């Protein structure tokens, strides 16, 4: 059975036509009428999605198809293309095995195309390519068939460049090639699409050639010489006439012809004009069709001629793997443990093996406050009433932390747009589980209750991080509890959003960008009917760092009986990046020391004496190193100093923001003989002051997050865009022009701090012709001294201090450091 299942996600850059193409599939499965295909956008069913015309939440739908007398079930997940919602894409990719990458034939591969494709390849998801909006090349840009071919060739080439740079070798044949048939071309809006095979089938009788052979002739330097009735590779015929490329003549030819008829027909006359032409290719137009508008008639003709759904369904079934095939090479990447029975069972997709489900998303059930846990069965069979063991993201097999037991009240599968309860469901399927929502936040691994030794499936890695925050609170304190409930729901349903409390009782929501937060707050408002939410202006998290090797600083304990000397210095960007991506992992001290010496040129002695990395153990950005020799009792108090390090790295000296890229060296320590004089209070407060002092002494700096921005626009309005970007401290790194079109892409970086309202401003200066994409890129030091009055960073620090209700004045060295 599972051989006839395909789990695929539709991924692309924003506005490249994912949802419209999904409509074609939905229509072909008979769930919506064919007439509404291309307009309805079935998967965008939220009011905010309809209003903004973009997909926000990914939507899953199961579609039954019969191909070559075999029944197939295709589970399609339509994902959002906007970068702010790329966490939805991550969640969709995890539960699918194949991806249909949609690329706009005019715009080509864009930043988000690359991001989602990279994510797919990292998950070992096999891609197929769908080049969409081909009609725009024909009607809007008026490309000749040859120009059109060149354009398509270029798109395929750039896609393959991305694929080859991110493919990890675990999957074979991930390159896309029209001859293989894993590239389709078409127009989602008009409902047509084809692969080379589609046309090869048409012509195989005429040429009396095998379809596969013929398909090869339809791409590349292949020309058909009618005079010799032969295929040749040179574009000159026997008589020296210039020949049309096979693709242009036989594939694009008929399509261009039909479009030509459309453009030449007056409204209402299309029926007569097109009748004879299409009847030749076996499409009957009836009297009923004659009353239709040109556009509608044309669409119905194209849909009968080369239906998009057929091309896509064939491509999906033929070129995307079944769960069984895919899990064989995905299992080692999925399972977070040794090669045990669980991993074996995942790789075999064994219905009788132990249950392993990864829940990638929590979907709110309409009407009730509950959620359906939406996930993929990788192994075993899930039955109704199944006793389950739920492993949360903090699960540790040694301590049994974050493991809960529960029961699957019911098992749902999607049939069309409806969820239907089933008695059991086997591996390879995407299921909804009801009854475990209480235990799950965002994602989890589900297994049998008895599988105490099972390791969890690896958690998803998001490509975006939550850098923009907004504080929300209710007007009246008595509504605070309702707000809390709403945020709980929000946090469950969105896999990226982070909801926390700050200590004045305000809730802080952190998201990927402005749009993300806007949508989330809208949703929150929906949960809290009628309660007024006050929200703050967006707050950007800053980080603190140091810019030079500082003097060592002395601090004494409150009782004056202990002394510590600490110095601070900056870490290299590479090292911080490695630490953050856990390439250098402090859990394994030996490997960590090795990596530090080999990759980052640390002294081997020093590398062995790293005491701690912090503040966040999962994504540390700072290091504490012991540079002392033979200090008595130092081991007794090490923990207290590490505690102080965590405190300081979590809230730095300038504005109590996290610190980043600082190496703290404990240079010397004097401790009192009597342990009662070197208690936690004495040592922690002493070390804390010394660390803060060391930061101040090493020329502290503020770092701000930077967005990389791609603005797609018309070349005539580029000047205005440059102005806006420059005004917002942006740096333009280059522009790319799509050949043959006036469309170009400006690539630049803009500080997040100055990015609020950027989209609107760009739209207004270009009268709606600019489409920016913003995504977090990196942290960058603001190169001015925050300790000097009136500098940019000084103002930022003061603002933050006021917001946090701290003393406005930045502390000075003498606040922390003692004299001998």
């Amino acid at each position, binding site marked *: 059975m599972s051989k006839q299942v395909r789990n695929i996600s539709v991924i692309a850059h924003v506005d490249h036509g994912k949802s419209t193409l999904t409509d074609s599939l939905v229509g072909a499965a008979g769930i919506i009428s064919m007439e509404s295909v291309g307009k309805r956008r079935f998967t965008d069913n939220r009011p905010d999605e309809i209003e903004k015309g973009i997909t926000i939440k990914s939507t899953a739908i199961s579609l039954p198809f019969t191909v070559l007398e075999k029944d197939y079930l295709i589970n399609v997940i339509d994902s959002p293309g906007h970068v702010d919602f790329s966490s939805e894409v991550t969640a969709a990719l995890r539960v699918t095995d194949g991806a249909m990458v949609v690329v706009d034939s005019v715009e080509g591969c864009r930043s988000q195309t690359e991001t989602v494709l990279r994510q797919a390849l990292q998950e070992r998801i096999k891609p197929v390519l769908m080049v969409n909006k081909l009609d725009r090349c024909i009607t809007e840009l008026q490309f000749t068939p040859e120009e059109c071919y060149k354009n398509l060739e270029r798109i395929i080439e750039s896609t393959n460049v991305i694929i080859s740079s991110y493919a990890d070798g675990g999957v074979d044949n991930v390159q896309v090639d029209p001859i293989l048939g894993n590239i389709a071309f078409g127009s989602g809006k008009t409902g047509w699409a084809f692969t080379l095979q589609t046309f090869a089938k048409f012509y195989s009788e005429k040429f009396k050639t095998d379809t596969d052979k013929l398909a090869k002739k339809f791409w590349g330097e292949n020309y058909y010489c009618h005079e010799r009735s032969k295929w040749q590779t040179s574009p000159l015929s026997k008589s020296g006439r210039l020949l049309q490329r096979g693709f242009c003549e036989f594939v694009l030819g008929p399509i261009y012809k039909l479009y030509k008829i459309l453009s030449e027909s007056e409204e209402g006359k299309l029926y007569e004009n097109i009748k004879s032409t299409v009847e030749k290719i076996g499409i009957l137009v009836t009297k009923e069709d004659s009353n239709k508008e040109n556009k509608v008639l044309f669409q119905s003709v194209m849909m009968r001629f080369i239906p998009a759904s057929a091309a896509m369904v064939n491509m999906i079934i033929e070129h995307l793997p079944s769960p069984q095939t895919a899990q064989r090479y995905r299992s080692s990447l999925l399972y977070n443990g040794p090669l045990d029975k669980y991993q074996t069972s995942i790789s075999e997709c064994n219905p009788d093996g132990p249950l392993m489900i990864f829940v990638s998303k929590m979907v709110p059930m309409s009407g009730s406050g509950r959620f359906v846990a939406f996930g993929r069965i990788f192994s075993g069979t899930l039955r109704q009433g199944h006793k389950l063991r739920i492993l*949360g*993201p*903090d699960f540790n097999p040694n*301590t049994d932390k*974050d493991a*809960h037991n529960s029961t699957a009240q019911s098992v749902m599968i999607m049939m069309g747009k409806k969820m239907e309860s089933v008695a059991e469901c086997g591996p390879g399927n995407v299921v909804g589980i009801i009854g475990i929502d*209480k*235990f*799950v*936040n965002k994602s989890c691994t589900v297994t049998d209750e008895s599988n105490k030794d099972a390791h969890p499936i690896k958690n998803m890695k998001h490509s975006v991080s939550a850098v923009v925050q907004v504080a929300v*609170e209710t007007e*009246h*304190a*008595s509504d*605070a*509890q309702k707000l*809390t*409930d709403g*945020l*709980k729901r929000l*946090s*469950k349903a969105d896999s990226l959003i*982070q*909801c*926390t*409390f700050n*200590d*004045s*009782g*305000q*809730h802080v929501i952190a998201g990927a960008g402005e749009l993300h937060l806007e949508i989330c707050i809208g949703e929150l408002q929906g949960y809290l009917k009628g309660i007024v939410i006050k929200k703050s202006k967006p707050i950007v998290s800053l980080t603190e760092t140091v810019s030079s090797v500082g003097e060592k600083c002395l601090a004494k304990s*409150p*009782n*004056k009986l202990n002394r510590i000397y600490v110095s601070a210095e900056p870490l290299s960007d590479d090292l911080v990046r490695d630490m953050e991506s856990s390439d250098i992992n402090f859990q394994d001290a030996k490997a960590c020391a090795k990596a530090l010496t080999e990759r980052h040129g640390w002294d081997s002695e020093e590398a062995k004496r790293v005491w701690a990395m912090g503040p966040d153990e999962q994504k540390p950005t700072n290091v504490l190193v012991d540079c002392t020799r033979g200090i008595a009792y130092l*081991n*007794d*108090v*090490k*923990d207290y100093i590490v*505690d102080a390090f965590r405190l300081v790295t979590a809230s730095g000296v300038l504005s109590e923001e996290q610190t980043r890229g600082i190496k703290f060296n404990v240079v010397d320590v004097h401790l009192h003989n009597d342990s009662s004089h070197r*208690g*936690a*209070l004495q040592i*922690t*407060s002493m070390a*804390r*002051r010394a660390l*803060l002092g060391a930061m101040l002494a090493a020329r502290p700096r503020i770092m701000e997050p930077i967005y990389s921005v791609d603005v797609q626009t018309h070349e005539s309005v580029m000047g205005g865009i440059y102005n806006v970007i420059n005004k917002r401290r942006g740096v333009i790194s280059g522009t790319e022009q799509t050949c043959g079109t006036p469309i170009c892409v400006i690539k630049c970086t803009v500080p997040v701090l100055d990015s609020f309202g950027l989209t609107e401003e760009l739209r207004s200066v270009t009268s709606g012709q600019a489409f920016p994409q913003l995504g977090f890129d990196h942290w960058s030091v603001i190169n001015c001294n925050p300790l000097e009055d009136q500098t940019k960073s000084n103002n930022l620090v003061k603002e933050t201090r006021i917001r946090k209700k701290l003393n406005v004045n930045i*502390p000075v060295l003498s*606040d*922390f450091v003692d004299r001998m």
Partner: protein
Amino acid sequence: MSTALSDDGSRIIGETVQIHDAYQNPKHETQEDFDDYYDIDRTVDIINKHGYVRVALQFPDELLSDSVRVSYRLKEKWNKLKQVQSQPQIKTPQIEANTNVSDIEEIGLSDESKPTQTTTTKTQTNNDNNTLKLYVLGDTSYGSCCVDVVASEHVDSQFIVHYGNACLQSVKKPVYHVFGSDQDLDVDTCVSTIKEYAQSTPDIHTVVLYQLCYHHIIPKLKSLIPTVTFANVDESRILQLTYDPSPPVNDMIQIGNLQFQLPEGIQNYKFLYIGHDTSPITNMMLDNNSKTFVRYSTDSNSLDDGSSETSRISRTLKRRYYLMHLAKEAQVIGIVVATTSATNYLLMIQKVKDLILSAGKKFYVFFVGKINVPKLANFSEIDLFVLISCPQNALIDSKDFLKPIVTPFELQTALLGKEKQWTGEYVSDFSRLLDSTDDANRCDDEDGDDYDYSFITGGVKMFNKAATSQSVQEQSGNALVSVDSSQRQIALAEMSPAMSHLQNRTYRGLDTEYTPPVSVMIEGRSGIASGYQDEPIKKN
């Protein structure tokens, strides 16, 4: 926080005590004003009537400067009274001798002298019942509103006169509260303002609350405005001669240290508070945060719309709500006892202990005297402190403290899972928690475990493991660490918080495996350190 931790103790010595401006100048033009303010005549009457001769005078910091004058006046009056009573005996010289400063002891500054002082007092009393001994108590251990019974025990006083703002808890010693009577209230303006306010929303009844220093003026206002309700002090608490911990049996509504009774049929009411700008009404507002509050400021003799107060209360409530969430997550809870006079505080400690145990958490009891940051910072393993104190000092804005400090109400709300239905009600007086009987209705999910999303750590967590009923056993009040079997079971069954704390440490004390070689006992030196017996006797 930096100042809080880097304290070396010198700060507290040199600290200037914050005294509210309003208190600084109860200017007493004449001797009569002064006597009136401190209610000297009535005090002397009471002392005389009950034959007390050792009396402690407890002053809050802001009135401490007047303490000497008060004691002089009391003594003078008392002596005059005695003279009148026993006409023939004229002891003028003794009066002068007794009004010497030497017998006015400031307790708290010279602890060593106390025993001797007490003995001298005793001898004096034995010798002469006609001498009044007055002791000034300053720098009160907890809040100046509470009667400091322990300090008064140090001087073996028979009677305490408490000055200033009071929480009016019943205590185990006879006590007389003098609130001080401020005269700066402009009665006419006040009356017209109250009337105007009451009529602004005629369908909502007005209840007038007041700062205790206007207690004397309330009867007058009452007679002038009969349409509104005036809160009042429980008169039996002003002069307490016997210890009566049971709450007053009446149907009065308690608010802070005041109480009032609504006229029949009134449900909806609002508050008007008469007092100085700086006087604390936070507690009253917190407990009644759904009601409207305005303040009649006696400094400007005008109405202050209370909007700044209201928004502050709203902020405070949100912060307290946040603290409830922290309380829910805490594994190890420190019970800090910061009262010895509040009614039923021992019962409350017991209740809090039971509450914590039934939630499957661990507790330690601390008694640290006056709370400050360094003291509590010594216990780094404690996740959260719950403060048992008189309601007026219950809210500690704990941002300075390393660990949050909550009130028993907040702890109860959090541990019983009621914060999920919290709608803003607040109880700062823990004695009202004691009578509430609803702790049985723990708001749990069907299966007894309570899972929830944690905003502190950002994940789903299991909270408040419901303990079986046997595990909630009687705890003996004298052990710091409870070691009953149920707790041990928890420790064995899974990681106890203490175990995980220990595990996270790299230094775990001396190696318990190591046993040093047993050596034979030898006889040491004997004698005292200035010259052991085996040392040669020093000359000179």
